[in-house]
């Protein structure tokens, strides 16, 4: 630059000396433009320039409106000059149009030029030009026609196109090729601004393509490039034509005029190659047509000139775009290599660009040139550097992200260009920020503090400094999340899913090509997934701000939180105004004012107080008061139990009463487990009965609640064993409990004064162990069915509960009863091997709690024997005690089962039965014991049910036969009977016995108060009833509940003051919750369950149990 200045200065004197030359004097005196330009060069400030131009414009204005138009052309040029300097000369617009209308050919030309420079397509004055154009198009003067076509292609009012379209079309047949060519381009312009107006002339375009003049054909390629871009399918038939054209061009068939530096029509080749790549994209058959010519092009393009590189570059791009062919790819790769390695910087740039383009298909290519790429990173040219970074950006993966981002930041430091900075910062942010956060979320998962995702989302919504950057960042987030969801969303942590759904909900509209329906579908998939926790679901649901359908589905969900969200959405979607107020666009940007004192509720509160409501007391105050009023401490309750439990276990008694207490303990053991290892230690001594598993169950339940994976239906014996062996495993440290407002509120509303410390932890990190268990359990055919059930239930809480139950059952060998509504599965019969060994340790010590409903009764057969009281028959005197339990088949003996209860017997034959709890059904096992010396033949066990079971069986002397009946509860009912009859043939006679098994049973459901609260809200069927209180000295509520507990196998979750909560369940998934409160001398009971008839059933049994008491 300084050279130039120097030269200028040295050249100046000589120029100045030319002063006196006549020519210059003449020009400067006549040319006003010369004067103007000279004037401007003399000026020293922008302000002066402005003044001068204004003066000039004023003079132009004056002269232009004078009738003397001889100077018109010159005036117009001056006006153009002023305009190009950025000064408006709007007064001259109309004169320009006039000039185009009326002037001579030369004036017309200036007029048209001025018009095309001054005006734009929507300028109103342009309408005045339409007639002029029309006239000129019809002119016989070629130059006028050309001028008209030129101005039309520069700008023309859209609405006026039909007026001139026929004339322009006509020009396609003009004998002069330059006119035809301009007409084609004018039509292309029309196509661009108003595509539907030129629909009908598509075949004229084809004619232009086949024009004998290559120039016209070239012009028509503009149109085809555009149209093929829009709709590649519509022009596949032309592929062969384009290939032929290219072949001819490459083969040098065009006139020599078209050569440029001895390269035949390079621009035409470029254009054709672009068209071919569009046509061959993702289309093998079309691609095959062009392989040959591409090969030819590559071969012919000798590297001798810039323009051949242009052709090569297009060729390479085309080869990589169309359906791949290996040898072409090889050649193209070599070509790219030439580009990248070229010392010419423009070629290097294009080489990098090509690499960037192909690197996703062929990462190896980038590897080949890695040294060059590294060199380019330090290239002095920023553009090269940036292109290299762009290339690196494309090949970023988990391993190299750090280095690449480092490089980018390095570049950022050295860069000053705003635009580049913005672009690059966006990329860094994309790569680094989102990716890192993604990793953080997926790895950290549910372990992390809840404020991390919150602050992430806050950052995302508040954004950075520039709008564009924010948009890019969000776009990237949306993209990466969509792809994550399309992958395996089931593996992502809940917290991450929540973030994802929020981001998608807020920003997915930014990605225009992403249809809302797609996002909805992905999110809906989340909703349907069984692993998704209900909290995540409500996040997801919030995204569906208008999805009527979804909200309706979830409007009847069993999860109350979900239901509420769905209802809210439904209301919002119906009330547009409200919606606009509640959910304004971009609400995230406006700070919300939170009225923490809730002053807007003051009116309501005072009204309520006036109506006699109790004043609000903060929770701690309530707690204190309650503690003073009723000293029911949880501590001793929780801690004393293990002791009593262990004593009971050591006695090896299987008392249901105690056992259900033990389950009560495990319900409370949320607290215990928090207290650390002391519990564990204590339980250690307790062998196998429940101790470890109680603890273990707790831990896993926590995990389960957090992870909500496929609920393992069978945390079965295998698991027990597994757990035993892996006992030393330390449990995952319990993460910070999440302050779950809703749950807390609920719990405190149900139980005033209860410690609101929430121990339901949703953030537990899953361990591989449960997975292992599950795999072990896979053998059980029934597991899938159970899993399905869960998935249908849509509530995640029960799954945790199930788990409790399952473990609990496993642990404590609870003697629970069969709940049968129908027995529909066939039994399998296994021959009991006659073992006559030792003592039977099955001390069938049945208690009251064992049998509900009517007791089994023995009905006489032929022989007239009536066993009216089927009290468990035990024959201690019998010399041969069979170890009945040893006859249980292996797969059942590992399962939790009831005691083997003798049903009835006579001298020769004894019937005993027990129930084994499979997770999805109940197996009724009937043992037939032959205590006589002779073999009993033809025993016929006939169970009276829908499917008649008739089993003939011989039992040899002193042996046991066993039958299994699998019973599935279809729906709860008050009274279920399985009546059966045994007939057999002794050598002596044929006595017959029939037995009736009639039971209603439920199992205790061990839950903590918090879980109870959650479940309570999610159950839909409820019944209220008053029961009589039992008052035999004790505190009536406790007494009553204890009776119920004993009789009905309920689990008392908590008793506080005058209220108590009880939980139980029929099989898995059929929990029933009971809330009791003492009112005067009755007990108001409120039952809730997801199972329709269960509350009614249970209340019936409660009434009976209390009556019987």
């Amino acid at each position: 630059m300084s050279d130039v200045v120097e030269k200028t200065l040295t050249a100046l004197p000589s120029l100045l000396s030319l002063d006196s030359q006549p020519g210059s004097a003449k020009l400067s005196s006549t040319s006003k433009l010369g004067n103007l330009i000279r004037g401007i060069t003399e000026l020293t400030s922008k302000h002066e320039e402005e003044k001068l131009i204004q003066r000039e414009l004023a003079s132009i204005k004056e002269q232009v409106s004078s009738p003397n138009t001889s100077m018109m052309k010159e005036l117009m040029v001056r006006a153009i000059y002023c305009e190009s300097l950025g000064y408006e000369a709007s007064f001259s617009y109309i004169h320009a149009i006039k000039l185009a209308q009326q002037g001579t050919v030369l004036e017309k030309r200036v007029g048209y030029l001025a018009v095309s420079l001054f005006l734009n397509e929507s300028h109103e004055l342009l309408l005045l030009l339409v007639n002029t154009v029309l006239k000129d198009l019809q002119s016989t003067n070629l130059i006028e026609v050309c001028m008209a076509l030129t101005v039309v292609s520069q700008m023309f009012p859209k609405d006026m196109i039909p007026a001139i379209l026929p004339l322009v079309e006509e020009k396609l047949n003009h004998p002069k090729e330059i006119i035809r060519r301009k007409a084609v381009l004018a039509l292309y312009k029309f196509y661009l601004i108003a595509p539907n107006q030129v629909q009908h002339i598509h075949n004229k375009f084809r004619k232009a393509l086949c024009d004998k003049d290559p120039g016209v054909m070239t012009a028509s390629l503009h149109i085809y490039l555009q149209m093929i871009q829009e709709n590649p399918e519509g022009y596949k038939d032309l592929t062969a034509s384009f290939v032929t054209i290219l072949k001819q061009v490459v083969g040098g068939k065009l006139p020599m005029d078209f050569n440029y530096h001895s390269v035949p029509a390079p621009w035409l080749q470029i254009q054709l190659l672009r068209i071919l790549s569009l046509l061959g994209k993702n289309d093998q058959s079309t691609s095959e047509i062009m392989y040959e010519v591409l090969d030819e092009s590559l071969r012919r393009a000798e590297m001798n000139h810039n323009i051949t590189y242009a052709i090569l570059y297009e060729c390479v791009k085309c080869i990589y775009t169309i359906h791949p062919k290996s040898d072409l790819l090889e050649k193209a790769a070599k070509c790219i290599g030439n580009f990248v390695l070229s010392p010419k910087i423009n070629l290097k740039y294009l080489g990098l660009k090509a690499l960037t383009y192909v690197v996703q298909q062929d990462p190896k290519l980038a590897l080949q040139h890695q040294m060059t790429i590294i060199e380019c990173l330090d290239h002095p040219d920023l553009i090269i550097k940036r292109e290299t970074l762009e290339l690196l950006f494309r090949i970023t993966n988990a391993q190299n992200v750090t280095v690449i981002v480092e490089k980018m930041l390095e570049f950022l430091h050295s860069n000053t260009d705003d635009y580049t900075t913005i672009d690059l910062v966006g990329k860094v942010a994309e790569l680094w920020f989102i990716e890192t956060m993604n990793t953080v979320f997926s790895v950290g998962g549910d372990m992390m503090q809840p404020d991390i995702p919150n602050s992430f989302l806050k950052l995302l919504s508040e954004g950075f400094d520039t709008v564009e950057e924010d948009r890019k960042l969000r776009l990237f987030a949306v993209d990466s999340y969509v792809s994550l969801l399309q992958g395996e969303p089931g593996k992502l942590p809940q917290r991450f899913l929540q973030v994802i759904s929020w981001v998608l909900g807020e920003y997915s509209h930014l990605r225009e090509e992403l249809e809302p329906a797609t996002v909805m579908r992905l999110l809906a998939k989340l909703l349907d997934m069984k692993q998704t926790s209900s909290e995540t679901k409500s996040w997801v649901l919030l995204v569906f701000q208008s999805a009527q359908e979804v909200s309706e589905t979830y409007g009847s969900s069993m999860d109350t939180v979900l239901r509420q969200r769905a209802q809210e959405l439904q209301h919002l979607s119906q009330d547009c105004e409200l919606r606009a107020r509640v959910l304004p666009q971009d609400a995230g940007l406006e700070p919300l004012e939170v009225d923490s004192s809730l002053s807007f509720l003051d009116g309501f509160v005072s009204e309520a107080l006036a109506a006699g409501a109790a004043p609000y007391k903060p929770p701690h105050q309530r707690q204190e008061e309650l503690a003073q009023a009723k000293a029911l401490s949880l501590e001793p309750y929780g801690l004393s139990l293990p002791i009593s439990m262990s004593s009971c276990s050591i006695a090896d008694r299987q008392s249901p009463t105690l056992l259900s207490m033990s389950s009560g303990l495990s319900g409370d053991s949320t607290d215990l487990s928090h207290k650390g290892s002391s519990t564990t230690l204590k339980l250690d001594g307790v062998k196998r009965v429940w101790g470890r598993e109680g603890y273990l169950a707790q831990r896993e339940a926590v995990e389960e609640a957090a992870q909500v994976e496929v609920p393992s239906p069978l945390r079965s014996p295998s698991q027990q064993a597994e757990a035993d062996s892996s006992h030393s495993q330390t449990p995952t440290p319990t993460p910070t409990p999440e302050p779950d407002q809703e749950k807390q509120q609920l719990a405190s509303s149900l139980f005033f004064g209860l410690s609101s410390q929430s121990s339901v932890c949703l953030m537990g990190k899953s361990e591989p162990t449960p997975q292992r268990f599950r795999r072990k359990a896979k053998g059980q055919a029934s597991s899938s069915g159970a899993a399905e059930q869960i998935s249908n239930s849509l509530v995640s809480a029960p799954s945790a509960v199930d788990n409790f139950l399952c473990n609990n059952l496993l642990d404590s060998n609870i003697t629970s009863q069969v709940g049968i509504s129908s027995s529909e599965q066939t039994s399998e019969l296994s021959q009991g091997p006659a073992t006559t060994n030792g003592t039977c340790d099955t001390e069938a010590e049945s208690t009251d709690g064992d049998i509900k409903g009517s007791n089994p009764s023995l009905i006489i057969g032929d022989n007239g024997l009536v066993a009216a009281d089927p009290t468990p028959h035990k024959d201690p005197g019998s010399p041969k005690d069979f170890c009945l339990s040893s006859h249980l088949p292996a797969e059942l003996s590992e399962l939790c089962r009831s005691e083997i209860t003798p049903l009835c017997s006579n001298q020769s034959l004894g019937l005993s039965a027990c129930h084994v709890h499979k997770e999805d059904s109940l197996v009724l096992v009937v043992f037939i014991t032959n205590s006589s010396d002779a073999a009993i033949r033809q025993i016929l066990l006939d169970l009276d049910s829908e499917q008649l079971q008739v089993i003939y069986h011989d039992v040899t002397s002193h042996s046991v036969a066993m039958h299994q009946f699998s019973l599935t509860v279809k729906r709860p009912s008050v009274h279920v009977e399985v009546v059966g009859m045994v007939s057999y043939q002794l050598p002596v006679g044929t006595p017959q016995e029939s037995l009736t098994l009639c039971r209603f049973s439920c199992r205790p459901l061990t839950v903590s108060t918090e879980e109870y609260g959650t479940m309570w809200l999610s159950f839909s069927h409820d019944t209220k009833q008053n029961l009589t209180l039992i008052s035999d000295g004790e505190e009536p509520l406790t007494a009553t509940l204890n009776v119920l507990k004993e009789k009905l196998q309920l689990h008392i979750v908590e008793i506080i003051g005058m209220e108590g909560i009880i939980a139980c369940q029929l099989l898995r998934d059929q929990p029933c919750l009971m809330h009791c409160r003492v009112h005067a001398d009755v007990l108001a009971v409120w039952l809730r369950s997801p199972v329709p008839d269960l509350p009614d059933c249970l209340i019936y049994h409660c009434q009976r149990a209390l009556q019987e008491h």
Partner: protein
Amino acid sequence: MIKAILIFNNHGKPRLIRFYQYFAEDMQQQIIRETFHLVSKRDDNVCNFLEGGSLIGGSDYKLIYRHYATLYFVFCVDSSESELGILDLIQVFVETLDKCFENVCELDLIFHMDKVHYILQEVVMGGMVLETNMNEIVAQVEVQNRMEKSEGGLSAAPARAVSAVKNMNLPEIPRNINIGDINIKVPSLSPF
């Protein structure tokens, strides 16, 4: 498609401005300034391509430029144009100017702005490349020139006019015109 063709000198004074896409007047000036800012910073030994600035449309747009002595020729194009193709088109355009003006220089562009526009119209029409063959372009311009001569306009013969301008009296040190290196060197096509 070509969005704009800008020619300005080393000081950023516009010499020819042609937009094929509508921009408001002040926006046009801003684009010129920004483009000049981008281009003038670059050495001669770097590549001739630039990603479009933020004004003219972001990353889809490219600035392809050549620097001849005192003038920058900048084509702003979208992704449907070949970079190297446009680079050579600029060369063709400059060569054509050189042929029409006989040793073209910046002053030719100033004083015959209209003429430059007419030449450009034969190369690029409404943003599309119309003709790349220099002889053809020159022939078209010649046709118009003949017409001009027959009509006998004010600035009749271009060659005469140019020499007249070149010999023009410039009383003071010109601020914007580099008279010293007045001829645009038409390079023998090994510019990079």
